[in-house]
């Protein structure tokens, strides 16, 4: 399989983030880790590009963020923990349906050569 870079992900990143948060709250790096694990390392995304998507989701009320309270012995700045809101959950379900019909319809056309 070929790798997928940031440009190809555009438009899908929000849904991907919502899908990772379905498994519980997470901070930025944890979201990337989950994406990496499930994409078998084939998602090539600049890590900073996660945040514009997260802020858009936050503005749209689909995720909610809080500052982490415990430093866990980390030296530096605080991280923000994101979790799914009910609205985000609904959006995720809708996007998932859309994606499945997209794949099945477009897939039928593209996948059979000749």
């Amino acid at each position, binding site marked *: 399989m070929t790798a997928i870079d940031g440009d190809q992900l555009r438009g899908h990143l929000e849904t991907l983030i919502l899908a990772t948060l379905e498994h519980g709250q997470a901070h*930025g*790096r944890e979201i990337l880790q989950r994406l990496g694990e499930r994409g078998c390392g084939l998602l090539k995304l*600049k*890590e*900073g*590009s996660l*945040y*514009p*998507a997260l*802020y*858009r989701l936050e*503005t749209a009320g689909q995720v909610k963020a809080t500052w982490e309270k415990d*430093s866990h*012995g*980390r*030296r*530096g*700045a*605080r*991280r*923000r923990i994101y979790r799914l809101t009910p609205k985000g959950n609904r959006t995720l379900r809708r996007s998932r349906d859309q994606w499945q019909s997209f794949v099945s319809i477009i897939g039928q056309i593209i996948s059979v050569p000749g």
Partner: protein
Amino acid sequence: MHRSLGKSANVVMTLAAEHARRLNHDFIGTEHILLGLLTAPSGQIADVLSSLGADPAKIEQEIEKFVQRGPRPPTRDGSPLTPRAQRAIDFAHHEAAMLSQRIVEPEHLLIGLLREDDGVARRVLQNLGLDLNKVGPLAMRDRLEQMKLIERIVRPIRTSPAGKRQMREELLAHFQDLFEEEYEQRKDRKVAMEAALQRFGNPATLSRELDRAICASDRFRYYTERWIGWRAPESLLRFMTRVAFRAFIITAALICPLILADLLINGWNNQSPNELRAVGGVLLFLPLAQFGLGLTYFKMRDSVWGVFGSPCSLFRTFLFGVCNAMVVILCAFGFIMLANLNPIVPTFLIPPICVAAIFCAIAYFLLARLRGPLEIRDTIWALLKLDDTTPQIAAE
């Protein structure tokens, strides 16, 4: 154990206690903390000081020249901190907080020691001819470099001050983690920095992407803040002049139509000169008061926290508080004199004016205590010089 200190800073404090015992001292002073920093296993602070030309061995000799060895070993365990050492640790806390760090590290302790003017540690380093202004930036260079990189991303973004504050901290936390992960593998700061940046993405691109993600209300707050707030890196005087001028324009725009309408409707009568003088008084003294209150507030805030060239001093804070109250009193008196065209202020007005002035100064002092750290942190970020020392990656 000092609960609020990080692991390596705690190691330093343990070493400081050992040095105190070795020198037969039954207290821990700034000199012992300095010795602790020099002998810490990481060698980090010793490196910083020796790269500035102060050999750790020489510093130790100088300290032992400065403080006499005690006659006999201390009898009790757990020596107390001297007030100066305690203050140096408090400074270290401020220093960490100003740079959005929650844990005090050895480099913060070092800066704390330098900020305690009369401490033995500072005097010893001064005697050795060390350029004390260079110590802080060198000890914090990793941190500052990371902050500059994040600021390169955040500064151009058109969002509210609170939005920027949040982004700075969150992105910095992420980048720090990346840096530390890379450093673990590569053991070289410069290479690790470049690798972390490679993973994080091009600052200019991220800046654009983030700017596009800003919601309308944050965008609106950005423009209002640009209009009313401080525009880095303008000076305090320029800022306050701008604020005063704006106050003048707004009051003039509000009052002049009213007074004109009054003159047109009622015509010129024997009340008119008084009204005009009152309007003139407002137009003159309101901007002046804003100028004076702003100036004294910022000076007071900087003295409370000992930042931006102000020493941390209770006396200075009090002095600027008095100035702040005086601004209120002078402006109120000036207004009354002008409005009454009489150099004598009615005695029954003096007590309420003085009470108002004192309340004003106290309110500003509380503001400086409560909001000061936040403002200072924002200002430090906004004043970071984004020169070319930050590594850059080629455009994608």
